[in-house]
């Protein structure tokens, strides 16, 4: 059994709901790790709690409505327990080999149709999990994530800056949640 400590940044209102009744299953980002609740974890960065804060601040801005949707952020520290055989670790060669074999097998089937399908990690992972191909409960990966500064200044890099993990079924793998920090978002200093 592996224990992972994750940090989840969100609004105070959402955090209160999470503490009361745990995280809910969520649809995920197809460009990242598929469905699940996402956390910043130790890896490329040794300050995942700070990254969770930066994420919560960045997400306060609603780009469609052009306004801030909350002004107080919250960081939740979450304990995640997962069996080794249910953890797909894409920060390691072992995990990448599994993903590559999955994509290669997928490609070998669809090439007979000569149709051009766009791939994304999240989609193929969702397919593998939901069709019962792989017993994935938790996935880890390194990504480049844009926080407020990168969004405002339109900085796009290919160098990964975060290690994140997605937990598909919170009630199965999340054992403890604690609010470790709340604060006001000072928009003038973003």
């Amino acid at each position, binding site marked *: 059994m592996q224990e992972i400590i994750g940090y989840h940044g969100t609004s105070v209102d959402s955090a209160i709901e999470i503490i009361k009744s745990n995280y809910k299953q969520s649809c995920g980002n197809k460009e990242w790790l598929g469905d699940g609740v996402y956390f910043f974890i130790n890896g490329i960065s040794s300050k995942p709690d700070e990254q969770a804060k930066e*994420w919560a601040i960045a997400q306060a801005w609603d780009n469609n409505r052009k306004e801030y949707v909350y002004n107080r952020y919250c960081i939740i520290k979450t304990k995640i327990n997962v069996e080794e055989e249910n953890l797909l670790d894409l920060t390691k060669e072992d995990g990448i080999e599994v993903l590559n074999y999955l994509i290669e097998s997928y490609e070998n*089937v669809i090439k007979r149709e000569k149709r051009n399908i766009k791939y994304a990690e999240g989609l193929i992972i969702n397919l593998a999990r939901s069709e019962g191909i792989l017993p994935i409960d938790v996935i880890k990966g390194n990504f480049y994530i844009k926080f407020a500064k990168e969004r405002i200044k339109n900085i796009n890099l290919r160098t990964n800056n975060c290690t994140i993990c997605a937990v598909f079924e919170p009630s199965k793998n999340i054992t403890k949640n604690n609010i470790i920090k709340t604060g006001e978002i000072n928009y003038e200093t973003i």
Partner: protein
Amino acid sequence: MKLSKDIKEKIDSFFNKIVANELIDLSISKYGFVENIDIELTELSFETINELFYYSDSDNSIDTETIKNLPLAA
């Protein structure tokens, strides 16, 4: 998770049983995969053009900053 014999067998077992068309339909309808559809141009040259400006009405690019995934914000 490692690419063990057991994991390979699980992956092989699924993909050996499904045909291409079925897999593509499943991928698109249930999981949101997107198919690139190339348009074959038959007229490759022209002498005059009436339009002064080109407007793309099929821009499929995604602005990641507009994606709303607040509930799962890490």
